[in-house]
């Protein structure tokens, strides 16, 4: 099971409370979008799922996040295992300044896995880059187009066999055509992976997600099936946000 259960999550940066009593369920092999205005806590919530917020000095949190039934905040929880299980894609593609093949195999080499030829092909095929790049795998990754770089970053995290993929505005640096292709890729990936995406683009959320949550001032205002959120939300704040009357 690669669902995520969030229970009564509070998160503070020093004295500032960034997340307030967030509870929800992110279903397995579904795309869940988190929407909301800038600074509402979307990315903060996303980063708790692989505990990237731990890197911020003043951060503290309480509540529980269960992945595979285990609380990732428990003492002794293996963070390396967590970050292998929960991969992340960022706003701007961030390939390593290495060759294409080295980007894919980087995680495998760190884990001292020796056989990875098949993995390279498998991962590049999964993101529809194999046909374009199979003859130039030793070429520099940074010379790829932005869309290809973003695909490569997704392929890079697939190589370490995650169960959950977090995406923080993954298309914000891409043009509409590249955005549409990445969205298609996400719909393919959800057959195998649980995907959580943070996006400012409400049309993107409505196009690709199965579930959608609205964050507002650190609180999860409403969480429901995407169709419900965009046609008949329960909360007035959600109604006002999706119709452009608030935010």
């Amino acid at each position: 099971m690669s669902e995520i259960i969030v229970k009564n999550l509070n998160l503070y940066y020093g004295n500032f409370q960034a997340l307030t009593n967030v509870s929800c369920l992110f279903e397995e092999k579904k795309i869940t979008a988190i929407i909301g205005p800038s600074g509402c806590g979307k990315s903060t919530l996303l980063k708790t799922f692989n505990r990237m917020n731990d890197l911020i000095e003043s951060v503290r949190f309480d509540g529980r996040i269960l992945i595979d039934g285990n609380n990732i905040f428990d003492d002794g929880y293996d963070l390396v295992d967590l970050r292998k299980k929960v991969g992340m894609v960022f706003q701007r593609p961030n390939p390593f300044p290495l060759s294409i093949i080295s980007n894919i195999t980087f995680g495998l080499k760190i884990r001292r896995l020796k056989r990875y030829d098949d993995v390279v092909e498998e991962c590049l095929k999964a993101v529809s880059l194999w046909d374009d790049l199979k003859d130039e795998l030793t070429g520099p990754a940074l010379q790829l187009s932005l869309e290809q770089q973003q695909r490569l970053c997704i392929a890079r995290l697939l190589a370490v066999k995650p169960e959950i993929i977090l995406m923080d505005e993954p298309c914000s640096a891409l043009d509409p055509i590249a955005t549409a292709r990445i969205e298609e890729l996400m719909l393919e990936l959800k057959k195998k992976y649980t995907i959580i995406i943070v996006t400012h683009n409400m049309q993107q959320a409505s196009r690709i997600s199965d579930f959608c949550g609205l964050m507002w001032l650190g609180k999860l205002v409403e969480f429901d099936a995407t169709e419900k959120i965009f046609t008949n939300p329960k909360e007035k704040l959600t109604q006002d946000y999706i119709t452009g009357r608030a935010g």
Partner: protein
Amino acid sequence: MEKHFHHELELLKQKLLDMANKVQQMLSDSVDALVNLALSKTDIVNSVEHDINRQEIDIDQHALKLIALHQPAGQDLRLLIIILKINNDLERIADETVNMCERVVRLIENPQLEGGNILPQMEGIVKEMLSKAIDALVKSDISQAQSIFQQEEQVDALHRQLVRDVIDQIKRRPEITELALDIISISHRLERIGDMAVNIIEDVMYFVTGEEERHPFDRT
């Protein structure tokens, strides 16, 4: 940008209400023509129909433009969807009134058959149903919905009764068959207008509640 969109949406709703007013007047005039055998009213109804056809196209195009350019959601999306549907129903009601007027012309020329007091009863109820449905749209108030559903059942029952009465008359006087069919046709058109008033109130209910309200089992 959103203020502009909401201004445009309000403008579109006003266009629909303007069309609704005209269609209500067409129904009123066609009923007047039928009850009082007033030929002048049929001319008025026919002349307005062209305006209604133009307005229907204008409203369709305006709504499609707003959907394409603004990707509305929530109650804005629901309003646009019901505007498109009600627009279609209003145009059909206008067509029905024109068709009724064509029958009225023949009845004026050959007033040998009466629909008794049933047609005027049906007309009164149907006018009221449409008026309530349009009022619900104007005020986003669905408190009259149940009353409209009950009136639809009354109209259906009156239509069935009229058909039975007219068939009896045909049996007694076969020479009036052609005119009798006109009476039945008018009754059927009134019954259809009642159905479309129900469509409109159901659409308004969807807009207000966000829930699908059509064809519930407990209303059949």
